[in-house]
Every structure is written in structure tokens, then in C-alpha cells.
């Protein structure tokens, strides 16, 4: 009978040379995700999670940086908040995975106490994900070999807002017939990016939002086939042009850059900008 636990199994597989470093990292991550994203009735094995995080950290840093679990207190606070929220509503697997990733990052010490105690809204999830803006600049050195950044996709507006840590400044419906169906988010060194896709049958409307966190480094571009023009819509100066017939509209509001990049047509685009602007008021 095989009595070895999941962690021992991974360690033994490494020792026997059966799996690569990247596979070991993947399996450790899977164990952590499994523990932290299970049903509420099943208490997470915190000791196992801590051991896995420690080993994962050692693997990622080639053992050059000692693992210090100085964020355990914060993790507990975060877990309590997560669990309280989970009792209210059963979350999708994707959301649980994202939450687990946040907890893992906490465990790795990327977040500060100030982040956990920093500015937060009424929603606990906003509190949790607010930190994503703070640690953004610390991702590159850790993931430089691979290049991936933290990302999350959901169909739930509530989960999207939890990830972003702010209320989305765009409505759930546009033109009375387009419904928001997908939110794709990424955390970059200088902004938190959100792509919102609306659908009406086969037709789509897409808006990109950049929540700028570092104005000095922020940079984005928009494909266009000719110089556009500025128009005023509901008090905002909106730059509009087209990319070989595909119209787009760009404007800014405080630290948010709006790029309405897929619209049915120019007039509809203007109407949507107007709706979004009115929605903000």
C-alpha cells in the first residue's frame, strides 16, 4: 500500500530523477491549488500548503533566497475573508484558482502588510485584489525566464471587480442589447488591464480598460490606418479613428484609459461612448 503523501511523492519523484524541475513546480502548484480551492467543508491542510510553497520557492529561486513565511498572519486574514465570502456564494473554479494564486503570492512574500491593510472598498474581494496593483512591479524579476504575468478570465462581473479591486466603470449592458459576457484581466508593471466583451447573438462589442498604476512607464498603442480626429462626447475628448474600416474610440478618465475597439459602426460607437460616460456620472 502506498502511504506517501502528495508532497513526499513529488520529492521522491525528483530524487529518483523521474520528473523535471518544471514538472515538480507544476505538481507542487497543483497540490496548493487543490488544497486551497477545495469545498468549504474540506479544511485546507495549511501545513502541507506551507511546505509546498516553501519548496516551490526554493525551486523557483534555485535555493538562493531563503523562504521566510513572514506573511502567514496576512494569509490567515486573507483566508478568513475568502472563506467568509465563499460561504455567501459558491465560486467558479477559475475564481478559486485566482484566489489561490493570490494566497500563494502572499505566501511568497510579494505583498506587504501595507497592501493588506491599505485602501479597500466595502467588498472584501476588492480588498484582496487591491494588492494586485501594488505588487505589479515585482513580477518581472521572478518570472523573467518565462515572461508570463498574472491573468484571470471570468464571465462574472463581480469576480472581475474583485480581481481589479475597483468597480468597473462600464455598464453590464450596452445599447440595450449587448450583454457583457467575458472579462479578461492582466496585471502589468504599469497598469491593470481588463478586456470586456459584450455579445448580442453573433455580434460583439469590445472595450479595453487600462487602470494605470505607473504613469511614468505606461505605454499603449492602437492600430489605425490613418490619423484620427477628436470629438467631444458627454464632456470627454474622444480620439477616434479606424483600422481599415474598424472604428475605435479612445479616451481617458483619471487613471483609466478606455479603448472601445470593436463596435458595429461609427454611430453606434459614439452612442456607446455616450452610454459609458453617462454611466460614470
Amino acid at each position, binding site marked *: 500500500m502506498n502511504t506517501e503523501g502528495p508532497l513526499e511523492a513529488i520529492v521522491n519523484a525528483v530524487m529518483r530523477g523521474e520528473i523535471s524541475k518544471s514538472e515538480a513546480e507544476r505538481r507542487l502548484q497543483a497540490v496548493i491549488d487543490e488544497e486551497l480551492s477545495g469545498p468549504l467543508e474540506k479544511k485546507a491542510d495549511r501545513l502541507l500548503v506551507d511546505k509546498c510553497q516553501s519548496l516551490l520557492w526554493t525551486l523557483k529561486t534555485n535555493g538562493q533566497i531563503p523562504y521566510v513565511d513572514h506573511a502567514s498572519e496576512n494569509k490567515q486574514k486573507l483566508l478568513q475573508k475568502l472563506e467568509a465570502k465563499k460561504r455567501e456564494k459558491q465560486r467558479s473554479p477559475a475564481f478559486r484558482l485566482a484566489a489561490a494564486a493570490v494566497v500563494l503570492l502572499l505566501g511568497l512574500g510579494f505583498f506587504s502588510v501595507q497592501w493588506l491593510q491599505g485602501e479597500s472598498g466595502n467588498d472584501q474581494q476588492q480588498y484582496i485584489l487591491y494588492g494586485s496593483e501594488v505588487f505589479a*512591479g515585482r*513580477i*518581472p*524579476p521572478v*518570472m*523573467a*525566464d*518565462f*515572461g*508570463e*504575468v498574472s*491573468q484571470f*478570465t471570468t464571465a462574472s462581473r463581480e469576480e472581475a471587480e474583485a480581481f481589479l479591486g475597483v468597480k468597473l466603470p462600464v455598464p453590464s449592458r450596452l445599447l440595450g442589447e449587448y450583454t457583457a459576457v467575458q472579462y*479578461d484581466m*492582466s496585471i*502589468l*508593471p*504599469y497598469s491593470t*488591464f481588463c*478586456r470586456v*466583451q459584450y455579445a448580442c447573438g453573433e455580434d460583439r462589442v*469590445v472595450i*479595453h480598460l487600462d487602470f494605470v498604476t505607473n504613469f511614468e*512607464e*505606461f*505605454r*499603449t*498603442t*492602437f*492600430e*489605425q*490606418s490613418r490619423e484620427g480626429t477628436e470629438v467631444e462626447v458627454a464632456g470627454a475628448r474622444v480620439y477616434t479613428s479606424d*483600422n*481599415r474600416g*474598424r472604428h*475605435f474610440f479612445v479616451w481617458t478618465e483619471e487613471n483609466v484609459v478606455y*479603448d472601445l*475597439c*470593436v463596435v458595429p459602426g461609427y454611430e453606434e460607437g459614439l452612442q456607446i461612448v455616450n452610454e459609458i460616460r453617462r454611466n460614470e456620472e
Partner: protein
Amino acid sequence: MKKAMALLLGFCVLLCSVGALAEPRADLVFTSATISLSSSGTCTFRATTYDEKNRIEITTVYLFKKTNGVWECICSLPRPTYVSSGFIYNAVMNYGDYMGDGMYRVQAMFNADGHEAYRYSNGVDF
């Protein structure tokens, strides 16, 4: 061996030159394709597409240095190995170790299901 190395180097320079001469143009696959280089050497690659893609990636990255007012290709850089699917590509690399004194910028080729578009970063003084 030396001849092979020289040929390879020549090929690299040729590739860079071709890339440097041709100017980027609007793209029908990407709604946006941007490279941002920070003063710390952090390079952020980001792209979004109009339609859903199976594979979005960066296939080549080159470093350019401005010498006497002219951008010259210095070397190729390790590309982000991250591959995405869907509508979005975001990756971050740190090229700080490759920068000496002077002004630098990065050129990269975005590839979405075989469709390619190269773009330049902003120039940064190091």
C-alpha cells in the same frame, strides 16, 4: 567553424537591417501590439487581437542602440517563452543586463496563429 559563425552573424545583421528599414504599419489582426521599455530594463510586451487565436507569442526580440543618431541592431535577446491563446498576450522580461550606456530600444515580432507583426519599444537612455 569561424566561417559558419561569421555567416550566422551576417545573417543576423541582415535580418536586423531589413527590420530596421521597414516601418510598422496598421494591422488587421491585432487591435494593439505594444512594447514598453522602462528605465530599469523591464520590457513589457502586450497585444490584443480582434478575433480569438489559438496561439499568440513573441517569436524574436532584438536590441537596438542609437549610435550617431542611427538605430543599430546590437544583438538578439531571449524572447518570452510564454504563449497565450484567446484575445490577449501579455509578457514581461527584464533586459537590464543587456544595456550599457546609451539609448536603447527593443524590436519584437508578435505572432498570432502565424500572422506576424513587428513593433518597436520606446527608446530609453541608460
